[in-house]
């Protein structure tokens, strides 16, 4: 049997390395990504241009890397914001109970009731589209499932004998929260955060693709794929295929890590 902890750690290191490479190269290639050169337009993938070039002679590999780096940064930001919202609302709901609890669960039902794409679209419109629009949209849509998890976890922890004992001993509530609750919540929250990542990246790309996200002058994957639509019939397959494949690969990496961490942390499968 494989040692799952070791392979997960390896995967994590690999992902972190890849992440750094993509983000750094994306930032470094920001200029190449928008640089046009009409002497080399519409090239199929070849040696200097591995992903080919588009109708303005822009290097698709540079555009893809820049787009991925943008996606990953937006994904990280939105996942963190939505995890923070989930932590705040989930603990408030569990700790305060009563009408706060009812309100939070009503809010959760509300957000779950509108298809995510539609809600992100609405929030993005409210913020005037662009980077902030799509970031706010994705962040405000993704917290409910994690908030439910946090709420259930806190409710369960509150019943735990060691916590009851600490409370009886007169530990102040903020110490109780910091020393006892947070360490138990953190692994769950981190896994939740990583599991949000794929969703966040995919939703950002989708909303940008629809024209409600990042503006067309940005080399976002959504923009690249939207532009490629016009050249499908012309047979320029590389414009859509390779950037999309790279996005899927990046998302898969995060999905795999999230899945592995979840398996390791869940008591039912931790020892397999």
């Amino acid at each position: 049997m494989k040692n799952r902890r070791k392979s997960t750690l390896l995967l994590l290191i690999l992902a972190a390395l890849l992440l750094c490479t993509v983000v750094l190269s994306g930032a470094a290639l920001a200029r190449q990504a928008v640089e046009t050169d009409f002497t080399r337009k519409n090239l199929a993938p070849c040696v200097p241009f591995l992903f080919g070039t588009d109708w303005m002679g822009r290097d698709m590999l540079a555009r893809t890397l820049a787009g991925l780096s943008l996606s990953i940064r937006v994904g990280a930001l939105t996942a963190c914001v939505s995890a923070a919202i989930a932590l705040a609302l989930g603990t408030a709901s569990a700790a305060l109970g009563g009408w706060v609890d009812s309100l939070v669960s009503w809010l959760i039902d509300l957000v779950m009731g509108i298809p995510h794409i539609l809600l992100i679209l609405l929030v993005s419109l409210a913020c005037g589209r662009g980077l902030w629009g799509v970031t706010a949209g994705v962040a405000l849509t993704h917290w409910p499932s994690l908030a439910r998890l946090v709420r259930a976890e806190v409710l369960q922890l509150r019943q735990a004998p060691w916590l009851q004992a600490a409370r009886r001993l007169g530990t102040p509530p903020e110490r109780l929260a910091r020393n006892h609750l947070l360490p138990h919540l953190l692994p769950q929250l981190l896994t939740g955060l990583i599991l949000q990542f794929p969703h966040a990246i995919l939703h950002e790309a989708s909303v940008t693709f629809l024209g409600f996200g990042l503006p067309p002058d940005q080399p976002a994957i959504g923009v690249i794929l939207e532009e490629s639509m016009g050249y499908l019939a012309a047979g320029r397959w590389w414009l859509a295929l390779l950037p999309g494949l790279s996005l899927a690969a990046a998302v898969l990496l995060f999905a795999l890590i999230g899945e592995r961490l979840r398996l390791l942390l869940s008591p039912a499968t931790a020892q397999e």
Partner: protein
Amino acid sequence: MEPILSVEHLSVSFTRYRRGLSRAELSAIRDLSLTVEPGQVAAVAGESGSGKSLLAHAILHILPRNAKAGGSILYDGAPLTPDRAAALRGREISLIPQGITYLDPLLTVGAQLRRGRTDPDTRSRCRKVLERYGLGAETEGLYPFQLSGGMARRVLIAAAVLDSPRLIVADEPTPGLDVKSARRVLGHFRELAEQGAGVLFITHDLKLALSVADKLVVLREGRTVDELPAADFRRGQGLTHPYTRALWQAMPEHRLW
């Protein structure tokens, strides 16, 4: 008499993660040996965590996927291979599990006892066996969540004896029952043994074990510490092993003052 079941040097272990990245073999059962004869109630007593349930699962070859078993188990004089165990389960060897969670919540008691068979013979046997344990015909139409704790135990016993087994493995069948119901359950075991079956009664309750058993097997940290006639233990005679003696002395009625 020739034993119906003999377990020799059984071991069961799991691979567990330690702190950090390394793994270690965790032995739940290290060296367990015992025999059960027909017509005998053999009680296996040990503190919780001494691998008692795993013993039951090992005999039936239904251990969890990540468990490794060693040693040998003989049934009726021949090794109990996985294939043989699969053929004998529910025919000659029966398990009486711990509680209500061993019943499918979505099926009625009758449907579960009959295992999907609907022929008149099975139906009448099912009704008879429920009757034997004081459960009316209406029990067949109940779902597990509608059973009381005592009823659930009796249904589980009924499920085990439906096929007139030669070996019954009872895994902690009494916790949560009041003393009266527990004694009644044990009475049923005695009765089954008198009809010729071998009964392996696994429990952490030494006092309860002594009230019904012919033979006592003392388990500690996954090892057989002692195997002795229950009558000897009751009288406090011939307790050669220090752990057994300590157990005997720890029982309230044997305290010196």
